[in-house]
């Protein structure tokens, strides 16, 4: 009797194993493969008028989103108000967004919001902000010094050097400005900081230094209208900046790869959303002077391959 029971059990186990074998062939591979990391939602908060300037960075962001499984939401401020950006950021947190990449409009307001705020991990571009999980961009001090040195080469010590602080609320450009100012003063120059730039000012200036591409585009455009235009130097590139650099409206640009900046910013945001280690990334800076835009290495930096 016991033997018969044992045989029955053995037959049952055999049947189950045979069924398991058949089922293992029928189960779709996707069910067995562990699902990849969950898609995360990242909001990109741009300033008003940034869209064209950050076009290349956007390509990098989209590439990173594709590689890392993220969904991007590009949001542009309607007014250049830091409070609006903070409010927009708060709303993103309320909507359940996993992380945000912010180009700060007002660093102080953003810092105040991020102080002790854990609702949403934030990665900043252009300006390093206290409380943000990471920052991606060039070294502001190095960039300012590089521009100052370049301006000093093309301008006499007695010459008028204007430092345009177009976005006083942005810490990154402000730091670059401070660095450039210090370097110029150390070299014997007496640079003047202005928050508004006019054609009259340009007429009298020998050199103008801008510290982000939006103001650089505007300065180049203004300088082009001058009878005796000053030499324009700036930080960051856009297609307009590159065109001005080619024509000589801009004397030199401290450039970095916006594509890399966008890619790294989103990848750090994704890491933060997935509670993985996050670190700030400093991008290397290359000085491109007028007429050098088609140098082989500069082409790769200034002209995206897949526009």
């Amino acid at each position, binding site marked *: 009797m016991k033997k018969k029971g044992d045989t029955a059990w*053995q037959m049952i*186990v*055999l049947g189950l*194993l*045979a069924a*398991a*074998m058949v*089922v*293992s*062939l029928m*189960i779709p*591979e996707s069910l*067995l*493969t*562990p699902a990849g990391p969950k898609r995360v939602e990242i909001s990109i908060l741009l300033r008003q008028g940034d869209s064209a300037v950050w076009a290349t960075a956007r*390509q*990098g962001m989209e*590439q990173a989103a594709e590689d890392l499984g993220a969904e991007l939401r590009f949001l542009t401020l309607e007014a250049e108000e830091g409070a609006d950006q903070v409010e927009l950021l708060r709303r993103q947190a309320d909507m359940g967004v996993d992380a945000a990449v912010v180009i700060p409009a007002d660093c102080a307001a953003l810092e105040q919001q991020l102080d002790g705020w854990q609702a949403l991990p934030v990665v900043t571009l252009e300006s390093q902000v206290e409380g943000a999980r990471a920052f991606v961009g060039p070294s502001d001090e190095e960039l300012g010094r590089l521009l100052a040195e370049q301006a000093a080469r093309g301008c006499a010590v007695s010459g008028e050097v204007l430092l345009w602080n177009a976005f006083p609320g942005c810490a990154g450009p402000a730091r670059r400005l401070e660095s450039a100012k210090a370097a110029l003063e150390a070299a014997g120059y007496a640079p003047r900081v202005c928050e508004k730039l006019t054609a009259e000012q340009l007429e009298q200036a020998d050199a103008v230094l801008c510290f982000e591409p939006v103001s650089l585009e505007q300065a180049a455009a203004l300088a082009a209208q001058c009878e005796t235009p000053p030499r324009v130097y700036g930080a960051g590139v856009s*297609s*307009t900046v590159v*065109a001005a650099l*080619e*024509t000589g409206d801009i004397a030199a640009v401290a450039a970095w*790869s916006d*594509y*890399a900046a966008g*890619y*790294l910013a989103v990848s750090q945001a994704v890491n933060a959303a997935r509670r993985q280690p996050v670190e700030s990334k400093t991008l*290397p800076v290359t000085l491109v002077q007028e*007429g050098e*835009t*088609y140098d*082989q290495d500069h*082409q*790769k*930096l200034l*002209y*995206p*391959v*897949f*526009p």
Partner: protein
Amino acid sequence: MLLRALRELRSRFSRSYERMSIQRVISLTFTAVAVAGALFIGLSLTLRYSAVNQKMQAQASQQVLAQVNLSLDNHLRRIMRVSDTVYYRLLKNADLAEGLPTDSLSLLYEENRDSLVSIAVFDSDGNLVTGAPLSELKAGADPASQGWFSTALGQIENIHFSTPHVQDLFQTADGSYHWVISLSRQVQLTRGGASESGVLLVDMSFSGVEQICRNTSLGADGYLYIVDANGELIYHPRQQLIYAGLVQENNLAASRLSDGTHWEKFQGERRQVTVKTVGYTGWKLVGVVPVQGLAVTTAQFVLFVASVLLFSIFLLVFVNGRLSAHIADPIRRLEQAVRQTGRGGEMPQVPEEGCYEVRRLEHSIRSMVSTMRHLMDDIIQQEEDKRRSELEVLQSQINPHFLYNTLDSVIWLTESGRYEDSIRMVTALGRLFRISLSRGKRVIPLDSELDHAGYYMTIQRIRYKNKFTFEISRETDTAGLYCLKLIIQPLLENAIYHGMAAEDDDGRIAVRVWREGDDVYIDVTDNGLGMLPEVAASLLDESRPLPAKGSGIGVRNVHRRIQLAYGPRYGLEFYSEPDEGTTARIHLPVLTQLEETGGKKEGMA
């Protein structure tokens, strides 16, 4: 250390093996061999499958590369045809002084505008002769300083392909830029009848190459890229990331590889690299498939292999269990039968089953057991016969001895005229013999045995002139019992010879019979000389010589007869003290008639 561990393992295995049933040994052996075989075959198949998979992937990569090469070749040929058309149809036989072929160039451009960015002709100084669709050079543009220009003039027989670069010669209306690959060739221009060198430039759009390569699929994680002969990237799906310095590619090493499939390790990752050279250009298509993508160990494969392995092992265990049981069951039944037979039982009937050898073994064992039984029965019968004959011999030893003595006494009485005593003696002798015969029975009633003792003593008293008295006493519970015949008489004879021979007229011999439980005791006591207790104890010692005189042999005969009949527990005992006399005690089992005829009591030999 290892040797000792191996020895210990072997010893433990041997001990386990010795305790194992044949079924388990067969089952485990079959299973182990089958599983080892299955694993070996499985491993071989997996390795083979893996190798075939890699080979197939290499073939697939080569096919994909061949397809891309075909598309790229078609694309490049089309551009080259444009270049040929411009040169051979528009420039070679035309005198530029009579008119520029700008319209024809424009038409040609329009026909191929999806692939082309510009067509331009330069003289040997780098001055623009004509072009389409853009005819105005940028300020500061210096074609003569560009690589494609000097290469075309330096190697005049060939069409030259540049690496991708931004087209920087012509003004664009919207300030846009184009990544192009430049085809340049040296051309002969005729101007006012004079021939001069020039350079024909056809800028093809880089996006054309990108479109050909972009949707190429090489396995799950594979990709394709193009390098020129110097290792410069022409196309890469992550070209912008590489330009931005975020990703590296092993393009320099790939440019040195020959066509075919290769293996490389790059940034810690092993990859299958397939290379195919593109005609005319010196470019190389490079297909990269990470080994991880070639692995056959997908989750489904692992699950399938695991379930097949489990099923196979369990099936093997199951089938081998059945098979070994089928082989071993007849042997086990035979072993049980032999064990039962060994315990003294009958050998049970074992059904005839199993293989030939087992059947033969079962037949042989059955035949052997039968033979052994017959032999044992024969031995028992022979032992019985031997004992019986020995008993009969012992009994027969008494008769001539006693008969001689008695007849000697009768002769002596008759000669001396003591006829009354003579008659009494003969009468007693006759009755004594009648009891002795007892129709051949070995066991007689105790009463007859006592009568026999009485008749004997009657004869002996006459012989010894009543020098001693004789009395028999018995307890009532001994009535109706049985005993071996002629066991008291030798003791009486011994008492007479050793106890009474030296006495004067006050000798006394007494026989007392009593019962204790299942035992019957018969004491024959005399008041003769007696002997030391150790001498008495040694009377029955077969190793000691018999006394020269007396019935020593008769006493030993009685003892042996009793022990032969009823076992070593029974027999004679002697109690004696010098000058006090001797008591010979017969110890017998209680025998009834039934027991006498039925055979033996418990414990009997």
